[in-house]
């Protein structure tokens, strides 16, 4: 009884973590299933068919590749634009700062369905054809805010004296940026890019509104849900999950190694937290 009281909080914490992973386990287990009928909802028979023939169902791989393509393009553009905005916010004085902040904050506080609907309203009124371009426009739009927030946090966390030291040591403004500022902000930019990619890759609602006939991976899943999701989708989702988890764990490990000599054990810093926070919005 005493033991239980002492460890109650820990037990609850672990149970919550387990709860978070139940659906993941279901997805993974069902990727080895040979379903009875169309719907891959309950266990029937072990099979590696989906894993040995990942693209065996038409449309699965093409939509998967399309989502990766859109993710990369949207991330590259949004990261560039968002990083520039973050630099402007932290390093430059300008008029309309509060309006700017509001405009960056709002996309994160707007339900996706409203963003998707309003963009669609714009494209319809402009008679702009829906497709890959409109989806890209939408993805870049909602990624920018997350990039700004992440990179801004990194920039603000930087000791301004480090750049002053560079100036003092004969680095002209370009050299300060190239040899000091940029390398120091780069981890934040990379984090923001990873986050942006995962947001784009997993986005359904906004894409669905603006896709026209374009089929991304989530749109494919949505369509398949009505008539039965192929097992291959589970296998691909498992791969994505494991790859993303590895990237994050490796990142954590690297930053742990870097700071190992210091007394404090690394905790996810604020900037990582911001991205992590935003990531869960996908």
């Amino acid at each position: 009884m005493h033991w239980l009281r002492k460890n109650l909080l820990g037990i609850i914490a672990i149970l919550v973590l387990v709860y978070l992973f139940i659906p993941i386990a279901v997805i993974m287990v069902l990727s080895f299933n040979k379903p009875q009928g169309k719907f891959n909802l309950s266990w029937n028979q072990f099979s590696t068919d989906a894993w040995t023939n990942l693209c065996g169902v038409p449309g699965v791989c093409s939509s998967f590749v399309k989502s990766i393509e859109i993710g990369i393009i949207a991330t590259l553009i949004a990261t560039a634009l968002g990083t520039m905005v973050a630099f402007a916010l932290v390093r430059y004085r300008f008029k309309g700062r509060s309006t700017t902040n509001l405009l960056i904050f709002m996309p994160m506080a707007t339900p996706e369905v409203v963003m998707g609907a309003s963009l669609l309203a714009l494209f319809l009124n402009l008679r702009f054809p829906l497709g890959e371009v409109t989806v890209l426009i939408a993805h870049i739009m909602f990624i920018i805010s997350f990039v700004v927030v992440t990179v801004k946090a990194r920039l603000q966390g930087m000791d301004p004296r480090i750049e002053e030291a560079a100036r003092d040591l004969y680095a002209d403004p370009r050299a300060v940026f190239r040899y000091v500022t940029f390398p120091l902000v780069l981890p934040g930019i990379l984090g923001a890019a990873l986050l942006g990619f995962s947001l784009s890759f997993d986005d359904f609602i906004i894409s669905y509104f603006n896709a026209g006939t374009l089929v991304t991976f989530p749109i494919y899943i949505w369509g398949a849900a009505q008539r039965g999701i192929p097992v291959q989708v589970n296998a691909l989702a498992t791969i994505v999950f494991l790859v993303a988890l590895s990237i994050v764990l490796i990142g954590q490990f690297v930053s742990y190694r870097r700071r190992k000599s210091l007394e404090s054990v690394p905790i996810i810093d604020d900037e990582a937290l911001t991205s992590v926070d935003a990531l869960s919005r996908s």
Partner: protein
Amino acid sequence: MAASPGNLDVQDLHLQGLTKRFGDFVAVDNLDLTIPAGSFFALLGASGCGKTTTLRMVAGLEDPTEGTISLGDADITKLRAFERPVNTVFQSYALFPHLDIFENVAFGLRRRGIKDVQKQVEDMLELVELSTMARRKPSQLSGGQQQRVAVARALINHPGVLLLDEPLGALDLKLRRQMQIELKRIQDEVGTTFVHVTHDQEEAMTMADTVAVMNAGRIEQMGHPADIYELPRTVFVANFLGQSNLIAGKRTGVSGDDVVVEARGLTFLVPSDRCSCTTEDMIVGVRPEKLTILDKADEGQVPEGHNRVPGRVTDVSYTGVSTQYLVDTPWGQELGVFEQNVVVGDRCDVGDEVVLHWAPAHTFGLDGSAGATAGSELED
């Protein structure tokens, strides 16, 4: 590149009419100062007195509102930070966290387009005794080691002036002592002018050959540490640099080489050349260790011509090397006395009636118009 820092002979640093205003606030007020080539110069003051702003203006990190900065005959006021032959050891070091020690030290050389840096960097790391750490990252070094990297990173450029902004502030007491000696050794070896900003009066006195005490954007007094300590010229300096017993009085006349001051019904003698006062209102000052404490019964032992104050002991603290007394005067002011523990035997106790006395030669006279408390509440 506008400047060629490597080839500069060490030259005097001149500040003329240097002023910095932030809005209505005057951080540095019309500062005129010459820092002799090769000296170890300390700018001492409480936080916010303008010392760091002065340093940043010399470094080029802050634009002066008015005035000029020159090195020898060359006016460097308009040069930007990266064009000046001046380098800084920053507060909390500001080492580049993404570069290893070698690259941190080589940074300035590389920016100036010097290709072959190996030898110079190695020599520099040798000087600061960090040769084995070349490939470590700053975060893997202790505070003292980081401090030495910061010094090496600046010195390798052979700056005309090396600026040190509270360089020892982040270190613990023991390490600070060690680094004080270390920095003096390095300065002796390289001969560069060091300008050191600190709020720690002990640090300034130990390290510098010239100390300038700054207050509210101005320099109150400047000179060799011992000279300033022995003969403070303002109430602020008397209180900020060490402790002082200050008694307000009026000048009543002259007796030989001494000025006669009446205060609280007592008469004090102050040597005229130790008197920095223009008005009749005067403050008589003496350092606590210059006082001798005697039992009231032994008053006859006070040498002829000494200044004396009667009182009652209110506190005794034995600190090993010395004993510190607080003595209440008849007019309610408390005076401090440091007595070296050279005599074994009786010390005064709380409540004892005593007489304090000191030689006029240890007395200093200050202008009394500003009151006797300036600087005392600022002491660190």
